[in-house]
């Protein structure tokens, strides 16, 4: 339970941090283009793809560590 909780908190911090810090630190600009896209636009295309990967990792850790409700069959 403790491991899964830590993984979940890390996941929340990672997703929130990526969304917030990207524009704040660098991506809030129109040029230079990244893969043909304005940087801010590029960032918000990238993170919705990265986010499921982060939460997918949290899911796997949670399952292995017996996270909340793991014992319930569904």
């Amino acid at each position, binding site marked *: *339970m403790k491991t899964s*909780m830590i993984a*979940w908190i890390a*996941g*929340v911090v990672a*997703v*929130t941090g990526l*969304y*917030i810090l990207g*524009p*704040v630190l660098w991506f*809030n*600009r*129109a*040029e230079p*283009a990244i893969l*043909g*896209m*304005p940087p*801010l*636009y590029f*960032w*918000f*295309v990238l*993170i*919705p*793809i990265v*986010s*499921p990967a*982060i*939460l*997918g990792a*949290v*899911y796997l850790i*949670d399952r292995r560590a017996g*996270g*909340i*409700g*793991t*014992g*319930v*069959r*569904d």
Partner: protein
Amino acid sequence: MDPMQIVLGVVLLGVLLVTWLGIQGGTKASRTLEGWVVNNRGMGPVMTWFLLGTEVYTAFTFLGLAGFAYARGGGVFYNVATNDVGYALGFFVLPAVWLLGRRFGFVTQADFISGRYQSRALGIFVAFCTALIMIAYVDLNIEGLGAVISVLLEGRVDLTEAEVLGFVILTLAVFFGGIKGSALQSAVKDILMFVSIATLFVVVPLTYFGDFGTMFQRLATEVPARITMPGPTGKLGLSWFVTTVLLTGFGQWMWPQWFNVAYTGRGPRTLKLQAVFMPFYQLVKVAVITVGFAAILIFASHPVPGNNVVMLLAKLIANIAVFVVVSLLTRPVDTSVTDRFFAAIYTRGAPLAAEPVAARASLAE
């Protein structure tokens, strides 16, 4: 025959078919209160994904978000960030809510509050607030319906009549179909929405700019301030962005209609999988935002109302208007929202017997 009459005919047929699907598919499961409101806690990951998708992605996503991008610039990306923060949070919160719901028989947010705080009065107050919020939410979406019809038919149909008709259809679908009918309708609506948004996303840049690269290059060189923050209004800066994402992201599950999705899931695993896959939905928002940005250049010489941008572009590229309109009108209002409204009105026996200590203990199951 007037092309718009054909569009209207297709729309009407689509609305009737989807309403029938919802009523037909949901009636059997809706014979009990638990069946009607939360489908006996029996929805798998796919249906829960569609259900939450339709709760989150309403007429605002389709019409308002493009309008926001068009009128207020890069600040619109807050809306992409906020839901994903909420999904990450929901990975733990929703299974916890589900476990407590199953243990103590909660089917609404008001039940949950009432049980956790051992206060029937608080539960009734939350139910009352839920009903009030849902009235505003239903009204917002009915307004969206009005915006679609006004652009499509150029004022040839009485808006009030159309909105009343939409509301009657919605009420029938909810009353007989319950949450399961709503989920089935959601699946159809979402697939139509994906098709229409994907079509607009591809066709608009190709039609007006030749390719995506040219469009992005023109946006970056001609209107850089319109695609970044703080945008043309000068008010939506980075501090606004950060605080808005944190506030709305962390507060996401306080919305009663989203909170209740936790009860419809088959179990914690369903809700965790949903949290993993929901962020993909945000790409739909990015596609809508792209259309809104394209509109900045397309309507540069003759500004239009932001909320009409999507429908105007769909009309300009007339052959895809049918997809857009049917996807919006098959569910003029998120029917599951109305479900919550009626559920909030229904004041069931507040589960005062629920022991807070036992409830906390059950989280550790």
